[in-house]
């Protein structure tokens, strides 16, 4: 292996894998990652949790949204190596003991899922929103979800689902 010190020409470097530990949905995992791997690639390919979607990979669709230390971030624009020792929650971590979360149930009740590709990102953004604002209005919901694109354009049902999950008088349309 190449020794890197101050006199080594930078061009001669080869990036090495480094061992990092991630707490994903409450479970600590150790993974060897190269610096160029994104968190989305590690979550999907190394850990095997494929609920998180990688779509545009340039920060414009929000399908890869996960919670990093409780904050919604884009896993496709986060290097995994920067997340050593941090708490990650993915869509798989929303259900507790086999029971879907209130937000997930509301998405089902409102038919807020069409092709379903944006749904994991939507669920994570909504979960983050409801944690800091338990009763958001329509405008606040729109603003909070501006970074999540639904190419089926099923936004009304999604906003209704957030209103239902936050107990604001929207009734389920599907039982």
């Amino acid at each position, binding site marked *: 292996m190449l020794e890197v010190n*101050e006199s080594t020409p*930078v*061009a001669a*470097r*080869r*990036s*090495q894998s480094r061992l990092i530990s991630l707490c994903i949905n409450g479970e600590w995992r150790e993974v060897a990652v*190269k*610096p*160029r791997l*994104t968190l989305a*690639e590690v979550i999907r390919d190394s850990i095997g949790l494929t609920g998180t979607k990688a779509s545009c*990979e*340039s*920060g*414009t669709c*929000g399908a890869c*949204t996960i919670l990093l230390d409780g*904050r*919604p*971030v*884009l896993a496709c*624009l*986060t*290097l995994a*190596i*920067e997340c050593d020792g941090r708490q990650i929650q993915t869509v798989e971590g929303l259900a507790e003991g086999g029971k879907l979360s209130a937000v997930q149930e509301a998405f089902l009740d409102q038919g807020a899922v069409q092709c379903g590709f944006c749904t994991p990102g939507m669920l994570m*953004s909504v979960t*983050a929103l409801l944690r800091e604002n338990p009763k958001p209005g329509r405008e606040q919901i*729109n*603003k*909070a*979800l*501006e*970074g*999540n*694109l639904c190419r089926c354009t099923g936004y009304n049902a999604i906003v209704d689902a957030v209103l239902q999950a936050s107990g604001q008088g929207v009734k389920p349309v599907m039982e």
Partner: protein
Amino acid sequence: MILFDFDYERAATLRDAAALLARLGDDARALAGGTDLLPNMRSELVRPGVLVGLSGIEPGPPGLEADGALRIDAVMRLASLAQSALVREKLPLLAESVHAVGSRQIREMGTLGGNLCQETRCLYLNQKHDYQFAAPCFKRGGDCCYPFPRNDRQTCWSVHMSDVAPALMALDAEIEILGPGGTRRIGAADLYTGSGLKPLSIRGAELVSAVIVPAQQRTGWGFHKSTVRGGLEFGMAVIAVSLQLAQDRTTCAAVRVAVSAVRERPLRLASVERMLTGAPLDGQRLAQAATEAGKEINPLPHHGFSRRHLLDNIRVYLRRTLEQAVERARSGCA
């Protein structure tokens, strides 16, 4: 997915990061939020050999200095900045501009310094090279400019899209820059060169370390970001106005107007400021000034909008933003 290998060094402090960048030379780039750098690496617009990660550096809370100026660490995340009670109270213009950036996720990741230091954009430049038509453009080391075939000046007509920079320019903010030789301060406008090839005036081993905004007294403000959708996009024009009225509540005592998403750098509109300063601010005068702005700006067509459309857009929204600032200045003086 980034298709080339690079190395990663984590900096514990900003000073460490500057030292690392100085030692590693041109091959290294600082990585803050990554929302601009990583997509550019993915499209291979930049191919650094080493990234110096700033994410381990905790920003201090925004703090008031002795002269009432507000000092904000550059590594502060945009979301925390927009939520800071102190910033919202003292600098609502800045809070509003930060709130207009990207999406919730982008604001959670992106930093203040990173927003100011973002790469310029054009429909051609920010593409994966395989998707480019034939050959690299001037900015990628080629010999032509595809979006502007008549651009024969060996330059790049890409556009700087920062939402925050015009607000800071309107607030007369200063930027603190940390380099191997220590820190220095420049005006917010001087961070930009006006060249699309190299938009930033700071050198390789330098970092934006803080932003210092002077105290604003009896100031009205206006902010507008023109977009098609209203969320998660780069602006058609981003307009920031900061304005003070004289005692009679009609005459303009001082005004600063800055616009971005129009040229290779965010612009201060000197001719508009001259037309308004010392003049009574009635509707006609504001409309005149907004019409004048088009001559000074001469926007580069970007994102598929024609020059004519961009000019009309600026004329209308600059007038409305000025009116908004006057309104706020009047209610503040009451």
